[in-house]
């Protein structure tokens, strides 16, 4: 793929490089077969977000709505009920969990010796992580779609008063945020998986990471009331930016929820998106370095 060094006359080399450039789709194809074939994994990954919505969401929303109903809603701002507010958080959380675990198939590939087949093939090594990451992203897309449909049934009011065209754009926007965010964490997960020996190690690291990432964010509650340190930390948390992006597209630029006013300018949203792009890029570079140096025998 470093085509700049190829001599102009060397057609054979160039042809080969071009042919190989799409090989990550092969890895993607295999990952998706596995996803569909592991029934329990498939079912749990589809059920888990629905269960969050059904139990945590419904239980918390009756509490939160009781606490916050006393707070007057500022004039001209749309009030958003808690279930709708946290639905964006559940989308983000599900994406985070799925993506953090997404690299685990590489760990199994490595431990079961399957990775040697790929490493000994002419396919560029970066395609292994690209294929795995794209399949992880697809899984997140499927989950997000399920949450949105299931949320609708439970009473989540996304896209209030939006025109069909705006709804379409909003869905695209949500998927763009989810996509970049999940790629970032999938590449991160791939990197750790390549460096670790055991699935238990990966599990440990993921558990250690999910709690602060999840709770030091705006997924379940507003960060406006956080102590200054946590508030500062939450700004650097990619999850916060994902949630902001999803809320902007799902609820609009101005709304009121859990006793706090929210207002996003397009610049804020672009900044959040840019932050996620930078995060994903850094993770890509890290993963590429790891894969190029990887020795698996």
């Amino acid at each position, binding site marked *: 793929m470093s085509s700049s060094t190829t001599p102009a006359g060397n057609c054979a080399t160039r042809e080969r490089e071009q042919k190989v450039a799409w090989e990550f789709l092969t890895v993607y194809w295999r990952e998706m077969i596995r996803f569909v074939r592991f029934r329990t994994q498939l079912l749990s990954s589809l059920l888990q977000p629905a269960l969050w919505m059904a139990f945590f969401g419904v239980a918390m929303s009756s509490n939160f709505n009781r606490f916050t109903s006393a707070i007057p809603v500022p004039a001209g701002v749309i009030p958003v009920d808690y279930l709708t507010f946290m639905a964006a958080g559940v989308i983000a959380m599900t994406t985070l969990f799925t993506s953090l675990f997404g690299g685990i198939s590489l760990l199994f590939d490595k431990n079961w010796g399957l990775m040697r087949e790929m490493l000994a093939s002419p*396919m560029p090594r970066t395609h292994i992580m690209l294929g795995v990451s794209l399949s992880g992203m697809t899984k997140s897309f499927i989950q997000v779609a399920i949450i949105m449909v299931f949320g609708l049934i439970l009473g989540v009011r996304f896209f209030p008063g939006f025109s069909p065209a705006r709804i379409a754009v909003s869905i695209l926007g949500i998927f763009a945020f989810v996509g970049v965010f999940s790629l970032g964490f999938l590449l991160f997960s791939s990197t750790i998986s390549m460096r670790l020996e055991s699935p238990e190690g990966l599990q440990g690291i993921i558990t250690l990471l999910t709690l602060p990432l999840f709770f030091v964010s705006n997924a379940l509650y507003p960060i406006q009331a956080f102590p200054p340190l946590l508030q500062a930390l939450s700004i650097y948390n990619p999850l916060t930016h994902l949630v902001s992006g999803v809320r902007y597209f799902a609820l609009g630029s101005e709304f009121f929820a859990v006793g706090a006013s929210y207002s996003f300018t397009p610049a804020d949203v672009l900044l959040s998106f840019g932050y996620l792009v930078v995060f994903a890029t850094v993770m890509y570079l890290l993963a590429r370095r790891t894969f190029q140096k990887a*020795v698996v025998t």
Partner: protein
Amino acid sequence: MGEGDIIEVQDLEHTFNGFVAVRGISFSVRRGEIFSFLGPNGAGKSTTINILTTLLPLQAGTVRVAGHDVAREPGRVREAIGIVFQDDVLDRDLTVWETMEFHGRLYSIPRDERKKRIDEMLRVVELDAKRNERTKNLSGGMKRRLQIARGLLTRPEVLFLDEPTQGLDPQTRMRMWDYIREVNAAGTTVFMTTHYMEEADMLSDRISIIDHGRIIVSGTPEELKNTLGEDVVYLETGDDAKARETLRGVGEIRSVTESPRGLSITISADGSHCLPRIVERVRGAGIDISSVNLKKPTMDDVFVYYTGRELRDEGA
């Protein structure tokens, strides 16, 4: 290194965290032959095969496979080789066809060509009836055959086989040998590692015995066995003591001992040529011979001779 060498290895060395696994080995494999690395576990066979297949980086020495340097052009080497790994490296949840399809796509074989070759290879290894079976449901022999079919899908110049029959039952192993011979007869050079003496003996055109990271001796199976020159003749006679006296002083006879199987005569030259003279001499002295038995050295004997110990037949 000659013109017809498809693998050329010079002064290959490899160290893992201070442990020297391969200590400066040199060898070459000729195009079209079956070449075996015979040695016990931990001898450096796997390390060598991993370097030759570009899975391990080259630390010291030069290695060329199919005309390409493994350090400078690993991509070219990868395109030219096929590998059958030691353990059953198959995705348990893919079907036989998916396993082949995945491999063909990894190597960018165009769709039509891929389909044709997969059908053909599955027929060759007699797995076309199992094409929609998941690999976890295959028997040990079928798994190994599928791996061979996969390794050959890309029409490699060299097929690497790492312990190809380990863990297979004797019958399946013989079938496996037939497959390997067929593959070789069709023009593919085979480089294999094994710790089974008879496997190396039966299949190989040439063998290198490797131990403690060094090549101890190389040659054809016949050469290796003949250099021992320790053929043993067993004679059952009417009078062993007298026969023993008679044979004393014959040029090629190294020693004569009485054993439960009769007289055991160790010969320092090719036993098949000495045997008639021994028989004549004993008969000439008026001693009856009731049975004659010539035992050629086996690869086991060769191995013990060169390494000073038995090759333990244990798992990988």
